[in-house]
């Protein structure tokens, strides 16, 4: 398979674009792999890619129940940022942002990463204090952050509601200029193609229905396409982690909840950045096709159904209208939902499990997309070396038993703790 370049683009352009080879193979599963990754979303594919590219482990399969990127990788609002405050999170998400900055070159695939900046709008003096503290922690860790007052926010984002009776008054904002967004499908396809080029088998329409054990150790998986044995098995099935890990006997501090996302009809350029609003939990950006892409909070009750309820649709649209009054006549094009692993402290899990041969990546709550590169990088390191990378050392399963929860929100043990 050829590298993508200006030259190949020109060559295929001149020949009517009929000569492009497929981007990855569609192999039959082999009976044995060194590592099997369950879950062909962004995280699973990234893990397979880094296992091969960073650790020289090429005999790897990624098993996907549906199609690549058909789960949460294809359902998110594509925001990338690293404005985390708690030790354990801060360095991990900054590693991810640094990987994002080189990702298109690294994968030889344009993931359309756009560092258009991200604003956290504050609606009260207390929120300004909290964001000032967050910004200081970020800067102390070498991460860019700027605090803007109301006048500066109004100059930069004139379309917010600054009227005296605004439902959510604007006091200022914390801004991260290196944040932004990326094209979610391109991330999946870029990792898939790059992993395939490294010899990784991407096996779709292959659901894991059980684990093969040798004594206590897990030595493979039973699938709808037959048994596949493996030296090590890694799970990257966020949304369904409790279900799949449950087949291996693991009980987890996770609940599954639906998170909805929305896109409007295409508009002319309006929002050239990413804006998050703290009080009503609302975030918005504009896609390259012109649609306003936005979302809110989870539906708040356990569900594995990949669809959301109408009360949250109403809440999110009311928030949109309250913060940006000019969207009131914009028509909604689509609304959808993904199902999230909500952990009891709002932070993820990337770890070797107590079961020999089984490795776990999950618990991504609201924030899996931005983590994709670092998640794959750190999970590959954990699987290859049996030790966590420095940046995922805190994302253990036993942190809950030991009192080392990583609570960004400080809300106590609750599946909406982020």
């Amino acid at each position, binding site marked *: 398979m050829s590298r993508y370049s200006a030259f190949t683009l020109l060559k295929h352009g001149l020949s009517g674009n009929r000569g492009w080879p497929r981007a990855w193979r569609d192999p039959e599963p082999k009976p044995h792999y060194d590592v099997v990754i369950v879950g062909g979303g962004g995280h699973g594919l990234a893990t397979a890619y880094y296992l091969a590219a960073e650790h020289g482990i090429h005999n790897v399969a990624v098993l996907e129940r549906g199609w690549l990127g058909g789960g949460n990788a294809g359902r998110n609002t594509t925001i990338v940022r690293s404005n985390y405050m708690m030790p354990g999170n801060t360095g991990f998400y900054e590693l991810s942002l640094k990987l994002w900055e080189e990702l298109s070159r690294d994968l030889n695939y344009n993931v359309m990463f756009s560092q258009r900046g991200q604003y956290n709008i504050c609606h009260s003096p207390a929120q300004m204090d909290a964001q000032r503290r967050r910004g200081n922690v970020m800067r102390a860790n070498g991460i860019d952050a700027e605090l803007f007052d109301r006048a500066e926010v109004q100059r930069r984002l004139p379309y917010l509601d600054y009227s005296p009776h605004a439902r959510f008054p604007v006091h200022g904002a914390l801004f991260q200029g290196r944040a932004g967004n990326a094209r979610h499908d391109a991330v999946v396809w870029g990792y898939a193609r790059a992993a395939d080029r490294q010899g990784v088998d991407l096996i779709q329409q292959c659901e894991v229905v059980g684990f093969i054990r040798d004594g206590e150790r897990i030595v493979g998986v039973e699938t709808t396409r037959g048994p596949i044995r493996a030296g090590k098995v890694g799970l990257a099935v966020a949304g*369904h982690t*409790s*279900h799949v890990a449950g087949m291996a006997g693991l*009980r*987890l*501090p*996770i*609940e*599954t909840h639906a998170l909805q996302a929305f896109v409007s009809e295409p508009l002319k350029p309006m929002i050239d950045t990413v804006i998050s609003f703290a009080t009503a939990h609302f975030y918005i950006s504009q896609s390259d096709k012109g649609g306003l892409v936005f979302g809110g909070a989870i539906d*708040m*009750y*356990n*569900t*594995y*159904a990949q669809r959301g*309820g*109408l*009360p949250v649709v109403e809440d999110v649209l009311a928030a949109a209208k309250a913060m940006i009054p000019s969207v009131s006549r914009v028509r909604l094009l689509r609304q959808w939902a993904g199902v999230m692993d909500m952990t*009891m402290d709002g932070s993820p899990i990337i770890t070797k499990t107590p079961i020999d041969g089984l490795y776990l990546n999950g618990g991504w709550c609201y924030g899996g997309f931005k983590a994709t590169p670092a998640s794959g990088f750190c999970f590959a390191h954990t699987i290859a070396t049996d030790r966590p990378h420095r940046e995922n050392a805190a994302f253990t399963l036993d942190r*809950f*038993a030991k009192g080392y929860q990583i609570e960004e929100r400080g809300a106590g*043990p609750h*599946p909406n703790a982020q």
Partner: protein
Amino acid sequence: MLRIPCPVCGLRDETEFVYREDASVRRPDPGETDPTVWHDAVFIRENPRGKHLEYWHHVHGCREVVVVERNTLTHEIGRCRQAREVQG
């Protein structure tokens, strides 16, 4: 929109309720000294794909806490009882 058959008020929209939590979790005896028992009660959830028992608080109705049986795949709602009638 979920519709919940409140045993006091009858069939009502979910917007009258607030979802509380998994109703299958049992708080340990206050004298329990094994930290793993507390850990499991505070953090670990069965998170079933299928039938789920859960507390909903009818804040805009009778203000009772009810235990609802709901399927997490289909959102089909089964029995709904007042929490005080459900034995621990």
